[in-house]
């Protein structure tokens, strides 16, 4: 009995899942399509006519590419900072016994369990009270702070699944503590560290709320988009949004192809 109804029932999950996927992807499609728009007014919300103008001149809007480069710089430094600090914490928590373990655990968990606006507001309270000039450094400090917990979570998961005997084997084979760490621990923990770093980069690059509170007059890319939502949205922000999306997909797909090729070499 292959009636349309049984077919529908069988494939309900697939249909619902693809529906959700469409919901997720639709805005990106709109962003891409509207990057070829030639709007008449200041806002790029209604379709007018096809144009390549924005793609030919992505930096044609004042401050846009400056804000993009600032966001990238902050994301890179925040990633480095959070990855180094977070990896050290993750190793300490998995590989050592120490006093105050529970407290440390809560301290790591809390930033993830708190609405971003609460952290944003309290950091502003700190900076205002201490008379610290808002700008690049306050943004960077804030980004490292909230990325840290995510790095700890990612690295911890990886180190937990790592056989401690591998490090013992290295020490047994004449590798001192530094050599053991560099030659064995680090390469094996690398995927976890990379995942944490990637997450940090994405979170920092796209952060708006905390930056909104602690940036002063400094304009990151999300701040620029926020401002343009009030003053008028140039087509160029769609161009940059589309380009970031395409680059991300290509990078991930390239990474996976390499991974697959490695896997294929192994008979399983």
């Amino acid at each position, binding site marked *: 009995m292959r009636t349309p109804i049984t077919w529908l029932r069988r494939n309900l999950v697939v249909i619902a899942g693809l529906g959700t996927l469409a919901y997720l992807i639709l805005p990106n499609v709109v962003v891409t399509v509207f990057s070829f728009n030639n709007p008449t007014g200041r806002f790029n*919300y209604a379709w007018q006519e096809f144009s390549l103008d924005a793609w030919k001149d992505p930096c044609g809007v004042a401050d846009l590419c400056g804000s993009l480069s600032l966001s990238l710089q902050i994301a890179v430094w925040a990633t480095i900072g959070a990855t180094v600090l977070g990896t050290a914490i993750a190793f300490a928590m998995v590989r050592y016994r120490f006093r105050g373990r529970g407290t440390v655990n809560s301290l790591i968990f809390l930033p993830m369990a708190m609405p971003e606006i609460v952290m944003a507001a309290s950091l502003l309270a700190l900076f205002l009270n201490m008379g610290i000039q808002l700008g690049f450094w306050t943004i960077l400090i804030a980004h490292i702070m909230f990325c840290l917990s995510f790095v700890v979570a990612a690295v911890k998961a990886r180190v937990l699944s790592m056989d401690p005997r591998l490090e013992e084997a290295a020490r047994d084979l004449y590798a001192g503590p530094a050599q053991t760490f560099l030659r064995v621990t680090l390469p094996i923990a690398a995927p976890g560290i990379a995942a944490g770093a990637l997450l940090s980069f994405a979170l920092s690059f796209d952060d708006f709320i905390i930056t909104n509170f602690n940036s002063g007059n400094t304009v990151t890319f999300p701040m620029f988009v926020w401002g343009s939502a009030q003053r008028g949205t140039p087509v160029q922000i769609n161009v940059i949004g589309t380009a970031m999306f395409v680059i991300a997909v290509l990078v991930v797909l390239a990474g996976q192809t390499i991974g697959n090729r490695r896997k294929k070499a192994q008979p399983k």
Partner: protein
Amino acid sequence: MTAVAAPPEAAAPTEPPVHKPSVRKRLVPYWLLLPGILWLLVFFVLPMVYQASTSVQTGSLEEGFKVTWHFQTYWDALTEYVPQFLRSLLYAGTATVLCLLLGYPLAYLIAFKAGRWRNLLLVLVIAPFFTSFLIRTLAWKTILADGGPVVAVLGKVGFLDVTSWLGVTEGDRVLATPLAVVCGLTYNFLPFMILPLYTSLERIDTRLHEAAGDLYARPATVFRKVTFPLSMPGVVSGTLLTFIPASGDYVNAELLGSADTRMIGNVIQSQYLRILDYPTAAALSFILMAIVLIMVTIYIRRAGTEDLV
């Protein structure tokens, strides 16, 4: 062949020396923890202290603020902004439920049915992150534009009549209504629901499904009795990762909503950055934090999962 279990010299059974691990070794974890923990103490905990002090100050921007232990601010802030608090919790809660309902089928699809498409689907879930979420949220302005195709279809099928009756849309408009804000919130936090769900579903051994089927469970029962319970860790962390940020969000309400859809995040943001009434803003964010932490704690206890990190 006599490997002797050498009896200790009968004359001197002296106590062998007792060895203790060196102090340097015991300090290693503290050195590893120090920089990161210090960072969190100075830029996470200390700010909370400053905010607490700000919340009990009085004064004005011109004359400066002083700590006067003015707890009245809390009461005033809470009573004045009850609607915004309730709206935040309602919108965030609705968005979380919608995320779960929408996200579960997709996570299930990726985990069990996608086959060789699995990686591509995962990339499609994650990749939108890289287009700034503000740009994507603005795209909803286009999608839900008055008189646009989406709104026209929703009106034709009578969906808007239902939502108008429920009071979440007005007439032919979707933009600037609660529906648009919830739609934006759901959209923005959906990947935070899907990824943890996928992670816990993916760990389930598919032979469990076969075993349950073998033991006379119908597909629906298999899901209810085996799959869903085993995916609980993902459900718990997914709902938390959705609800917590959604409850403090102000971007969606600002871009897609109107003055009638202001959430508590909007209030805190404008108090801090526009009106510059720091004590009220600080009190509001503490109240929000308290509400969220209490709800999260109760939820985690009820769900029985402690290891979320």
